């Protein structure tokens, strides 16, 4: 499977950004490996663990030094005064430059890895299932390439990249799938996208809205159902047949339906 992309980021289009992109490739052996898909969800877990370790070390170090100072330099007599050092110019500059380089080095290490993972998030494999999503108060409405429509239910085949091209019919929403570590806002007037790699058939994953969208915001949820490729094909054809007679798969949250039925503002 080739790691091709037809969703060129604006970054790649400009000259300056091409240099940025090259820098990202240099820092990331994975990005140029070429043969396999890099699953952003796995990459996320790895980078999270690395950054967590990084900040834990810094935090523990600072906390221990502070705690040691507090014990070591506690006041022993009431007329005692501190005798902190008067820094020479060289020492004062040193206490700026050295920490600055340490912090910047850590920043750049984190930034380089973050960038490389970001490329994985934004470059969608060419071999993929592309689904249109229209978000609205308060449902996720998906349309498959063959015209099949579902609501709050996204059925996908295992082992294939799934890409959502998203927009909204009213306010800003955000399609979040915690298990796949991915979210992106959808809004009127723009088309945004995200992709993820479902691995295991038979699993269900929560989809939920993470951009405040009004009264029923917390009930704007659905699910991703992963099927084996064969089961998925069968399901898709079955849906196509059913929808010719006018039945849609998926369901609306009963509380949202109630709100609408009661004539409450949505």
């Amino acid at each position: 499977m080739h790691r091709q992309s037809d969703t060129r980021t604006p970054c790649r289009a400009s000259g300056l950004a091409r240099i940025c992109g090259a820098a990202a490739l240099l820092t990331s052996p994975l990005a140029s490996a070429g043969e396999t898909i890099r699953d952003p969800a796995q990459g996320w877990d790895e980078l999270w663990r690395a950054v967590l370790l990084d900040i834990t070390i810094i935090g523990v170090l600072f906390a221990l030094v502070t705690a040691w100072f507090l014990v070591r330099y506690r006041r022993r007599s009431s007329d005692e005064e501190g005798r902190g050092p008067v820094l020479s110019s060289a020492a004062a500059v040193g206490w700026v430059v050295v920490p600055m380089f340490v912090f910047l080095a850590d920043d750049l290490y984190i930034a380089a890895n973050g960038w490389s993972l970001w490329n994985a998030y934004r470059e969608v494999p060419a071999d993929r299932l592309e689904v249109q999503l229209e978000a609205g108060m308060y449902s996720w409405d998906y349309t498959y390439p063959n015209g099949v429509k579902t609501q709050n239910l996204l059925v996908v085949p295992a082992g294939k990249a799934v890409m959502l091209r998203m927009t909204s019919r009213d306010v800003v929403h955000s399609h979040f799938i915690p298990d796949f570590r991915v979210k992106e806002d959808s809004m009127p007037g723009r088309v945004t996208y995200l992709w993820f790699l479902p691995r295991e058939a038979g699993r269900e994953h929560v989809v939920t809205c993470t951009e405040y969208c009004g009264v029923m915001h917390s009930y704007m949820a659905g699910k991703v159902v992963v099927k084996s490729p064969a089961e998925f094909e069968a399901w898709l054809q079955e849906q196509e047949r059913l929808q010719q007679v006018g039945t849609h798969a998926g369901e609306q949250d009963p509380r949202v339906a109630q709100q609408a039925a009661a004539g409450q503002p949505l």
Partner: protein
Amino acid sequence: MSIKEWIFTTDHKRVGILYLIGSIAAFAVAGIMALLMRAELSGIGPTVTSNPTTYNVWLYAHGAVMILGFQIPALTGFFANYCIPLMIGAKDVAFPRVNALSVWLFYIGIILALLTFVVPDPPDVLWTGYPPYSTITTGNTALYTFTVLILGFASIIGGVNFLTTVAYMRAPGLTWNKLNMFVWCTLGAFVMQLIFVPVLGTAVTLISLDKYLGTHFFDPANGGDVLTYQNLFWFYSHPAVYVILLPFIGVVFEIVSTFARNRIFNYKAAVYGGIGGIVLLAGEVWVHHLYVSGMADWMRIGQMVSTLMISVPVGLLVISLVGTLYKGSISFQTPMLYALGVIFLFLIGGLTGIPLAVTSLTVNLSETYYVVGHFHYVMAVAGTFAIFGGVYYWFPKMTGRMYNEFWGKVGFWLTFVGVNLVFWTMMDVGVREGLPRRYYDYAQFPQAAEEQHLMSVGAVILAVGFVIAVINWIVGAVKGEKAGDNPWGSKSLEWTTVSPPPHGNWPSPPVVAPDWSPYAYGRR
């Protein structure tokens, strides 16, 4: 002493105390909102209210009032007013009547914010007011717009006043490099307010124009753009975090130096590198609030790097703070406990911000409880601890009396335990479950129920701690022991006058000696 004297006062200390009273009242209201939300979230399904809109109004009021009605006015209103003229040896601020106007506007803003609970259609647009929701909701977006405009205007005229005061009214011999850290920090904050508040004012005005007068700034169906608002809003509102951060770090510097009886470690690095660096970077990092908002990919990367670079000036400030403890003579009265609390809370909050600077990590973390936990640690709770510590610290100066040390410490430890229980758990549930913020209910995340319950218990503990502190102040102000003019043995200028200082602060303006500095300890 009549009420009228207080309302029409132009004395910077009284204006400051009016700011303090107003902002503590705002803190109480916003705190009650937080408790109501925690009660609602303690279980799945409706608990306190069955109407999500009611919850959303609490959510709006909690955020807007805490930031615009409590933290910014307490830090740049109360502390700046009370301390800056005293710290620079001035009789008052440069424009005392403009100062009085700013506190009046602040009270008008607070009243507007409180109207939320009176009008039939309270705003439900969060403190962010994102369109198109804010332009189509049945909630009262205009109230939000006017609250922001009034409080923003109060802040701008305060900023002009203090920049002038510090530039022209320093005591003879008090050079720039002898200014208190708090004065430097507040100057930095006011510079940012002057640059960025107008952008916020523009943004919130445009949503009301869209909603009530039919313009289409944010309406894509008529050529507008939804994302423009988010950019304008965060172009102010990220710097706003530093408008809160800088003065509260300044307060902590004052407390730490006094209670460690020690000079500031590497003062110039903290001032020019730390404060200057933050002011310079403040306007180049807002996109980290928009990492999943459909911004151009290259912008999401560029500002990842500038956001991470914030660690440099912040790191310099922290090194200076911790360095001030080195070879100090540290005592642990209540103000110092709060200041040390800030150091630890800020350490946790600052470091947990690093993953949120990374675009790709934020794809998962944004809009979850992790974010809420992080910014409460770094700004909300650290800032509030600094405010409480600062009030305790200058309490003898303001009232001439002493608070109760025992209850001061009890209050501190309760809040310290409470906030960690709430916000550590919050970050944990955000990462492990991906629980989204701003949720009235969370039936799709049943596994989060237990932690939600724990957070609600923590919220009660921390609230009790804060109530004890406020009662301690009231009792202390009325019948505390006489404190003397300089109970802490500080070298800073505000402690050289009597407590409480009279109108005009000193009988004759102070002149500072060539070898004086507010931190000239260790020269016996």
